[in-house]
């Protein structure tokens, strides 16, 4: 049976925060459990029935006590709520400089793509000490990306993107589980996260022979699907230019504005008429069925790589921290 742990490893920046909250909750739980068990034992023995004829004095209740044991637990729960919510909020906000990785869940495997072009199945290599952001979707049913050592979990839902992030703090090999039941081989949809020293990670990145960066693959796809016929870089085509699109606010024909994030780009590829850019006609055909989820992610990465348009309005762009390796 080998080793027999009772507590999971802490291997991300968020893990100690989660565990501290756990300790607090455990302390509260143990206190109240002992209080209740103690009272029951004490009362049960102290006031055990000594004669069938005894009739205890009637006590109807006490308002002070009722208020006390409503207010104190309420106060404690509000601490639990705020504390838990603040951790959650942190978990929901990937840092801007995070390393972007794309994941596609499929019965019953994880397919992961690095920006540099490396692809992995059921394995993910990441560098130590750097935040990693995963943009994820599913090809079939709902899955869930769960790394116990990082204390993170997020569902991977078909038809939309979801996001999770973590910053590993300890090199090593950690479990990756699918946590949302997804069919026959659900328990086989597992893998490993390898956290490597940055230098080892660089070596690993250079070790494989990828066909090119993810954005390059996206660019090839962009050509082969003939997207470039209409989406011209200078905006002279029948369709809006995609240069500098990512992270910008887009004015739509119905008057609304929307931020061009991964989800918007995905929707615009698969359901082009859902949101029409102001000043353009709904001409674009759908690419549903013509391009896989992985392909869509490559296109998203390509459009992201087109960088900010010169003179883009301030505050509306995605900061580009990582120099392109191409």
């Amino acid at each position, binding site marked *: 049976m080998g080793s027999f742990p009772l507590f999971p490893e802490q291997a991300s920046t968020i893990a100690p925060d989660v565990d501290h909250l756990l300790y607090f909750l455990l302390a509260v739980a143990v206190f109240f459990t002992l209080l209740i068990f103690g009272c029951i034992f004490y009362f049960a023995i102290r006031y055990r029935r000594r004669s069938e004829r005894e009739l205890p004095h009637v006590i109807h209740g006490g308002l002070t006590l009722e208020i006390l044991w409503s207010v104190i637990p309420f106060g404690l729960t509000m601490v639990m709520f705020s504390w838990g919510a603040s951790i959650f909020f942190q978990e929901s906000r990937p840092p801007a400089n995070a390393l972007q990785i794309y994941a596609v869940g499929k019965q019953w495997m994880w397919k992961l793509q690095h920006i540099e072009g490396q692809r992995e199945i059921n394995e993910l290599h990441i560098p130590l000490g750097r935040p990693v952001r995963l943009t994820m979707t599913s090809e079939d049913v709902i899955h869930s990306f769960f790394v116990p050592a990082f204390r993170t979990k997020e569902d991977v839902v078909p038809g939309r993107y979801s996001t999770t992030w973590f910053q590993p703090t300890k090199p090593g090999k950690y479990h990756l589980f699918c946590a949302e039941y997804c069919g026959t081989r659900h328990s086989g949809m597992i893998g490993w996260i390898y956290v490597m020293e940055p230098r080892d990670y660089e070596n690993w990145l250079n070790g494989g022979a990828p066909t090119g960066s993810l954005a390059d693959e996206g660019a090839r796809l962009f050509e082969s699907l003939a997207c470039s016929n209409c989406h011209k870089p200078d905006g002279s085509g029948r369709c809006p230019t995609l240069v500098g699109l990512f992270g910008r606010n887009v004015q739509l024909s*119905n008057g609304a504005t929307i931020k061009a994030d991964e989800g918007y780009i995905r929707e615009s590829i698969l*359901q*082009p*008429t*859902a949101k029409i850019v102001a000043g353009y006609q*709904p001409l674009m*055909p*759908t690419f549903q069925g013509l391009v896989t989820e992985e392909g869509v992610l490559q296109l998203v990465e390509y459009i992201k790589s087109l960088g900010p348009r010169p003179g883009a309005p301030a505050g509306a762009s995605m900061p580009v921290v990582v120099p392109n390796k191409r």
Partner: protein
Amino acid sequence: MASEGHAETLALREQFDTADQQKDASTLGMWVFLITEIMFFGGMFLAYSVYRSSYPVVFAVASSSLNAVIGAVNTAVLLCSSFTMVMAVRAAQLGQRRAILIFLILTLILGMVFLGVKAYEWNEKFVEHHVPGPTFHLEGVEMQGPAQIFFSLYFAMTGLHALHMVIGVGLLTWLIIATYRGRFSAQYMTPVDIAGLYWHFVDIIWIFLFPLLYLIDRHLR
């Protein structure tokens, strides 16, 4: 059961002490049943609201493909049936057996007319390929998926409404037979009363279904 021995017009069941208590219980029971119906249709209204807010344009186009005039006429038919139903209940309150019978039959006929029109409309959908499935196609929108969701909701909502109408028609038929046999009087008219509640409730559901399904942004056309 011991109550068979009671006067048939009163039909007091053994668990009750008085006729008032029995009538109160039945009415309350019907109202509680109706709120379960609110929640039942509520689930579909929720799905409808979510998708209408996600796909407003598709829903407007899909809605405009329905025939608003037929919808409005059918709404009127149902409102008329509610009127005849309440007149039947009134007749029961006054113990006018002949009037109960007439109004119940009128309600039944109007209910059947509604269902007939509904059947005609559904048939149209089959002809126009507006039935969700592999052959589905709606002119005028690129996004066939959400358009199909509109029609899925259309069929689910009108279908379950129609199912309730069919149950109502069954109830009416039973009431007509019972009235004919003289079961009801001013003293005992609970079944007519609670069937009336049910019928009006089904009417109210349609009062919401009609504008939500038929009348989305008609001006766009």
